[in-house]
């Protein structure tokens, strides 16, 4: 898992550590995926994004199971976000993270370029 804060003035409003927050986000995404596939009127469906009154969370999942999650402000359109996440996967992740033979699967990605 890899996390970066896009906003400089990030205030911690809860006492959760970063690791706990990761677990919470992951658990939430897993439940969201399951919820969406069950409630959907179509036979196969997958979750793309949700928004609250303050932020928008988008997710892009690859067929190999890697999920890219991004929190943005509300004015981004979902097409733009989807494109960005897809490009992020294609250009950056595949090139540098996957093809790096020194990178083990469990440790978080430290590469600066990433």
């Amino acid at each position: 898992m890899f996390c970066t804060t896009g906003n400089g003035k990030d205030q911690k409003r809860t006492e959760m550590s970063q690791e706990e927050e990761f677990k919470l986000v992951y658990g939430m995404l897993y439940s969201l995926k399951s919820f969406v596939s069950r409630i959907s009127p179509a036979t196969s469906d997958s979750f793309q994004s949700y928004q609250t009154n303050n932020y928008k969370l988008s997710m892009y999942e690859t067929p190999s199971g890697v999920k890219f999650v991004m929190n943005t402000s509300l004015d981004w359109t979902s097409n733009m976000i989807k494109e960005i996440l897809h490009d992020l996967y294609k250009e950056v992740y595949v090139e540098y993270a996957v093809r790096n033979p020194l990178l083990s699967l469990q440790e978080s990605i430290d590469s600066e370029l990433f």
Partner: protein
Amino acid sequence: SVYIINKAGGLIYDEDFTFNKITEEHTWQEHPVPLVFTADTGKVLVKFGEFAGVKPGYSVIAVNRQSVNGTMGPGDKPIVDIINNPESYPLTLTFGKGKVVANEKLMLASMFHSLYAIASKISPVESSSGIKELQTDEFVLNCFQTITGVKFFCDS
């Protein structure tokens, strides 16, 4: 469909406006159907096997073009029996996404209640409401929470 959830997260009202879009229909002439069915969740689901576009997750919504009622086919015979009985062939089965069972609706409603709360907690901004709008490939789900804590959500 519309769902209303009370302050504690329990479903108090739901209304279904969707109707089944028929997705796959197939006629079999002889007995062994190359799909494995399971009938324990209140509808007959394809558990295993893939055939002409029908995949696991699809459920039987019509037998011989007559719509089914839960796991019972026309004439109140269990669908699984009809499928396993060689005398009922040639047999036409229609597959689609089955209707959401009442029990499942309760589960989904309380799931959503918790997801709504978590969404407001993990917000990178200081205070945030829960999920107002959720978007997937096929539908959009909107939610509105009143100041008393009652949630109204519907998919479109």
